[in-house]
């Protein structure tokens, strides 16, 4: 039998997690699949489930005038798509997650906490410099998402802690480049993805962010590489893209699994980065 709890408040949820050593359950679209073993066999829950999808704190969405966002971890992805002014990169990433039915139940918090190298919201959120608001027995804390994800399937969440919301600071309008490669065009987990954002003024790169998903244990973002582009002209960046590519080649360390081969992932990731640096920068 599976024991499941449905706390009404965050406080209640936190104490239940602590008392029962429970597993947070949000949309369940990762958890249910993960805990199911062979085809047809029942899910194996070694610990009780604590449903966090109805906690008010996790369902709240705030958008400040200055342009920052606070997005509850438990908001279904399809609801996020209805928000006006949602950062374009996040919208683009979410739109390609799963299918309508999956997006109706799957949540941003689940996508982040599952911490799959192929989680599609992560490249966007990392480029947006998002951070995680975490609640635990000892109170609340904030952590950058970069540090929050520690490895494949691993986060900095301590036992008994919950991700409450995701904070996104204001970002200037930027041009977006997003390529997700899956085994098919819809409802497919990423073989790999490349997300780039760039702000150009008078042919000069003012801001540039670039993240590669599913190509290493964690999403790849290289601040030095990005910084080296800033202040340079578009054509300089394009001309020098080989230097940049070699930096990414160092960090792109994909694996071979049932969805793709390491060789395919690496090669294609670098090609897409090249496309971004050479083609997409020019207006």
């Amino acid at each position, binding site marked *: 039998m599976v024991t499941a709890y449905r706390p009404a408040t965050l406080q209640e949820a936190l104490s239940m997690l602590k008392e029962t050593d429970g597993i947070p359950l949000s949309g369940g679209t990762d958890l249910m699949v993960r805990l199911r073993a062979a*085809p047809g066999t*029942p899910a194996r829950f070694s610990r009780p489930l604590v449903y966090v999808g109805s906690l008010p704190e996790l369902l709240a969405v705030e958008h400040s005038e200055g342009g920052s966002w606070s997005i509850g971890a438990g908001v279904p992805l399809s609801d996020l798509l209805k928000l006006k002014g949602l950062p374009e990169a996040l919208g683009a990433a979410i739109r390609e997650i799963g299918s309508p039915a999956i997006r109706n139940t799957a949540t941003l918090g689940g996508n982040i906490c599952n911490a799959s190298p192929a989680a599609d919201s992560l490249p966007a959120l990392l480029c947006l410099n998002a951070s995680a608001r975490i609640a635990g027995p000892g109170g609340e804390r904030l952590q950058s998402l970069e540090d929050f994800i520690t490895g494949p399937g691993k986060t900095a969440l301590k036992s008994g802690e919950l991700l409450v919301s995701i904070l996104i600071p204001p970002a200037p309008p930027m041009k977006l480049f997003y390529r997700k490669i899956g085994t*098919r*065009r819809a409802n497919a987990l990423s073989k790999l993805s490349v997300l780039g954002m760039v702000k150009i003024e008078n042919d000069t790169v003012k801001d540039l962010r670039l993240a590669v998903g599913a190509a290493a244990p964690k999403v790849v973002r290289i601040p030095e590489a990005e910084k080296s582009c800033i202040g340079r002209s578009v054509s300089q960046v394009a001309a020098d893209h080989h230097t940049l590519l070699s930096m990414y080649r160092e960090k792109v360390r994909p694996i071979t699994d049932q969805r793709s081969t390491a060789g395919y992932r690496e090669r294609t990731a670098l090609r897409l980065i090249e496309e971004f640096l050479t083609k997409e920068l020019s207006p």
Partner: protein
Amino acid sequence: MTGKELRIVGRRVRKVDGIELVTGQAKFTADMKLPGMLYGFARRAGQPAGKLEGVKKDEALKIPGVVDVLTAEDLPGPNLIGVLPPFDQPVLATGDIRYAGESVAFVVAETREAAKRGAAALDVRITEVPPILTVDEALGDGARKIHENGNITFSRKLIKGDADKALAEAPVVVENTYETSFQDHAYLEPETDLAVPGGDGRITVYASCQSPFHLRGLIAANLSVPAGRVKVVQSNTGGSFGGKDDVAVEIGILAAAAALRTGRPVLVAHERGESMVGSNLRHASRITITTGATKEGKIVARKIKIILDGGAYASESPFVVMKALIHAAGPYLIPHVFVESTAVYTNKTYAGAFRGFGVPQVTFASESQMDELAAKLGMNPLTLRKINALRPGDATATGQVFKQSVGLLQAIEILEKERLPEKPEDPSDRYLYGTGHSCMLQGISNGAEGVDVVGATVQVSQDGSALVGLGLTELGQGSRTVYAQIAAEELGIPLETVTVRQVDTDSVHDSGPTVASRSTTVGGMAVLKAAREVKESLLDMAALMLQTDKKEIYFQDGFAILSKNPDARIPLREVATAAYWTGHPLMHLAFSKAPEAKYDHDTHQGSIYIAYNFGAHRMSIRIDRWTGEVRVLEHLAAHDVGKVINPVGLEGQVEGGSLIGYGYAHMEKIEESRGIIRNANFADYAVPSIKDRIPTRTLVVEEANPTGPYGAKGVGEPPVAATAACFANAVSDALGVRFTRLPVTRQDILRALQSGAATHGGDKNG
């Protein structure tokens, strides 16, 4: 024929059962909840080969909610199923475990969860045996015998002329070996059966299935009861494509046996993983072809060896062997042909019927080689096909001659008239463009594979409406709509007043299996005949009422009308009511029987099929050199269908079949290691999604087929083979390298570019 213009046949009509399906009103087997219903779940072997030493039920029976556990000894009958005797497949394993998906015990419980838990708790002891996982191992000297009579399931030869001699003398010869992998049917609704014991000693099985009478026969045999005790009702079926035959029988027997033991309804509803592991797949294949031709491009001979991996059980392998055998040489006039076709047992999920039935495999091989031959001859690939295309009066590979309804040349000519899509300017040199062609034929109906009779009833009610019943099933292909159109056309009544009933084995005549693109052709003919018989009876009645000869009357829009004076008309409802009162029959059962196949069993020379569908496809693609991504820019699918009954239905069949062919050629691959399927889910098994749809355009050739209604012939299967073959040719054209294995995934494409194998667009900077 009617002697008049057709009014309903040939018109674009909406599927008669479409609204219920798209609005979710249609109920499927798993939607049924009956009082006291139990859930059944099979424990599977989980390893590909072994000896079942025993199953201990105790622990499972202790699980709360578990009501009963069945093992092989608990089945009242022979515990054997199959398509062609001698059957070789147990419902529940007895001694040998032959594939990992083999059911060893069946647990029924109050809930699905409890049944699963019970299955997990069973103590199943299997002694491992090294599995045989490739056809080469299976055919190797001294290989362990998977079945008593060895590892060859079925093997046949086709011999026309002297291929060896002709090849030795041929000025141009090409040879190559091609391989294809397994494919899953991937229908939306996994297999589901519900068995309900009746108070009258009968049992009713509601089934998502393709051939209800096949189920009835095998369920009755395995329950050891007369067939009449079992009633099979085909529920709305969410796709089948050949897949809901063997497995529907298997779970039907389990559900029925458990229902009889417990006296309660038992539902078995597979999940996706079970569907992929525990039901038949499309045969993987290895095909070697040698083609000899003159310098002018006339093919003189083909020699072909086909090996099909049939997995653990025979299933439809014998018929797939034959279909591959007969179609392998392609739709060409070739004087000398030798084909050997063999299915082999391995310790893998069994292979059986799947839309196309052996033809996609051989068409890919044969059409790849046509392109290779064209390249060697320096000839346009379509011209080469045209030179060799079968024409009316030509002998097929089996020596059968069709004097009409051979529309391949017309199909090719349609393609020739269509301009190629323009290549956009691409200064970056990033994209590669390619175009591929394929020609094919597909035998319609069972032909040499078995009896080919359909019995259909048409019943007119006093209100002038009609009810059609036959034993062929609606599986999404639109056959109900076709039957309704035919009945409406013949009776001169509005389409909306025709109902085509659900198939249940109590109420319709056994019409053989719903397979082989035969529904419209053979089923439609039976409906047409039955409708005409009822019409004769109504005409007799109308003649009495209008006091004239029945030759002077026609039926249209629900009226009996006097030819000489169309204002003189009586509503058909009045005619039908009068017929009822006066005892003019309002219902008829009519049979359509295809001309019998006559052929030599050693050489397969003779008449095999009643007709062939001929097709010519062209696909233009763009490949992204950086990612290997393929975009289909245009896909033209020209088929000779004899006569279009419903253009909308035809397009649906061609587009759907093409997408299955595209998935087969580009995306879908069963990943198996050590005899276990590793990607038995839709996240890892990439069946195309709606966004992967390709821009298929259906082009029609109508060369009337004398054996079909209004000249029609089927089209359900043909697009699969043609699409897969022209996709492979398009990729090969774009890259300048021959791909000899399906699927050709984007990884394969990128690898070819990277390794330098591709002569076009190869990677310069590694």
